[in-house]
């Protein structure tokens, strides 16, 4: 029996169609449907309920060092109020999960994948639980407001311009009172657009969501649009585009191996699988994650085999859908080394037929994050 999120009642009132995802019943789409929801996010702002994600607070005297023992990210160098994308790696150099981490001052605030939260909690408690307190933030909802009008819509709920999340830049976070609710807000998301992720008490979530939806720029959006938006944005989904057997280098996530943690860095290594990952960084991976653009109108979905011009196996599609902004099917997958150059012609086997696809640069839709203008 799937659990519900604090917004289940509101979703029903908004005409949601539900799907079970990682044991949680969530809207796959609302009355608008996936295509319109997708396009509305790119054009204005979409409100997603992502309360199924795992929210975790990690506390302790040496919390940054403890997290660095599990992940190749630079947590020691993460300033208070800043957020970072990170990976938990394993001894084989594979990815146990990907997550977002904020240095929240006194602690680190993590958002981990719904399907991996039990695993991640056990992993952290087992490895760093001696020196750190790992607190699962049950009783908190998580909403994502995504799209170019997000900042203006969210600012309307702020008590003053000085106290508005509009002042945040991409990958920064802070506490704000919005519509009367205390919220922990980061300027981040999973659509390739400007946007915010808002953590708040479950009991405050529905009223907060209703206030946002009163703004005509904001429409509810479901998991269907979230998936097609993130594929267009070239962003990985754990369990589809990477897993415990995927090296970060082949996944194109080498940026999550911080300079300080690489060979010659200030705190080189010291995370699971460092030697394997360093080897891949130095020698290149045997396969590479690439964008795939099908030539026709037929969607090419995860699981489809990729073949080269000779019909030999070239790799596999890991995610694919119809990209409403791209105006056609878009996909990503892994190809063997040597085939990753954009423009490489391949075939994808769909229902027994080989459809032409072309290797394409990711993302399909340019990212439009609200970055700082100075570096």
């Amino acid at each position, binding site marked *: 029996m799937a659990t519900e999120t604090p917004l289940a009642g509101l979703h029903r009132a908004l005409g949601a169609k539900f799907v079970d995802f990682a044991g949680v019943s969530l809207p796959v789409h609302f009355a608008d449907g996936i295509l319109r929801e997708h396009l509305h996010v790119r054009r204005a702002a979409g409100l997603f309920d992502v309360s199924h994600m795992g929210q975790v607070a990690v506390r302790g005297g040496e919390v940054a060092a403890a997290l660095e023992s599990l992940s190749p990210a630079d947590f020691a160098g993460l300033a208070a109020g800043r957020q970072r994308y990170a990976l938990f790696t394993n001894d084989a150099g594979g990815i146990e999960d990907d997550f977002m981490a904020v240095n929240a001052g006194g602690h680190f605030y993590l958002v981990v994948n719904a399907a991996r939260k039990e695993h991640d909690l056990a992993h952290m408690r087992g490895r760093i639980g001696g020196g750190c307190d790992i607190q699962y933030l049950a009783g908190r909802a998580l909403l994502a407001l995504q799209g170019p009008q997000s900042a203006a819509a969210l600012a309307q709920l702020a008590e003053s311009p000085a106290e508005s999340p509009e002042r945040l830049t991409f990958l920064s976070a802070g506490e704000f009172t919005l519509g009367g609710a205390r919220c922990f807000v980061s300027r981040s998301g999973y659509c390739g657009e400007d946007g915010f992720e808002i953590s708040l008490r479950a009991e405050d979530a529905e009223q907060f969501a209703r206030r946002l939806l009163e703004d005509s720029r904001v429409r509810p959006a479901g998991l269907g649009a979230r998936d*097609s938006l993130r594929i267009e944005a070239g962003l990985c989904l754990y369990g589809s585009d990477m897993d415990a057997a995927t090296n970060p280098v082949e996944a194109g996530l080498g940026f999550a191996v911080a300079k300080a943690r690489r060979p010659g860095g200030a705190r080189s290594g010291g995370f699971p699988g460092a030697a394997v990952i360093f080897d891949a960084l130095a020698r290149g991976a045997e396969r590479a994650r690439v964008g795939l653009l099908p030539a026709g109108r037929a969607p090419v979905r995860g699981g489809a085999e990729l073949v080269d011009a000779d019909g030999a196996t070239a790799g596999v599609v890991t995610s694919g859908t119809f990209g409403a902004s791209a105006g056609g099917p878009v996909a990503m997958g892994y190809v063997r080394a040597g085939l990753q150059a954009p423009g490489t012609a391949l075939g994808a086997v769909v*229902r027994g037929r080989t459809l032409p696809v072309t290797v394409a640069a990711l993302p399909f839709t340019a990212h439009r994050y609200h970055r700082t203008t100075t570096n």
Partner: protein
Amino acid sequence: MSETRFTSDHEWARKENGTAVVGITDYAQEQLGELVFVELPAVGDAVTKGGEAAVVESVKAAGEVKSPLSGTVTEVNTALADDPGAVNSDAAGAGWIYKMQLSAPQEFDSLLDADAYNALVAAAG
């Protein structure tokens, strides 16, 4: 005189003399969501009752269209290549998928009539 009948897999067939028009039901299109692609059979294809004849794909999933009847495809709705959404907006009309010459017209009698199909959909919630 034409009559429309249904399958428990949510296809419809409208029979006229020895031919039939085939599509998916309004309930089926609603379950799938907005269609982005329809894979049509080829004119001349032999189809059998219950066998896969076409594929309808929404953003989230692909669904197979099983032929409600046996026979030969005589015409396909090529307009769906550019406008698969016609199946969503008018599943029983402009969203038809193919026409066929029937090889076993008596199969039509085994399909569900409108009352039986509506009862099945109502039971599905």
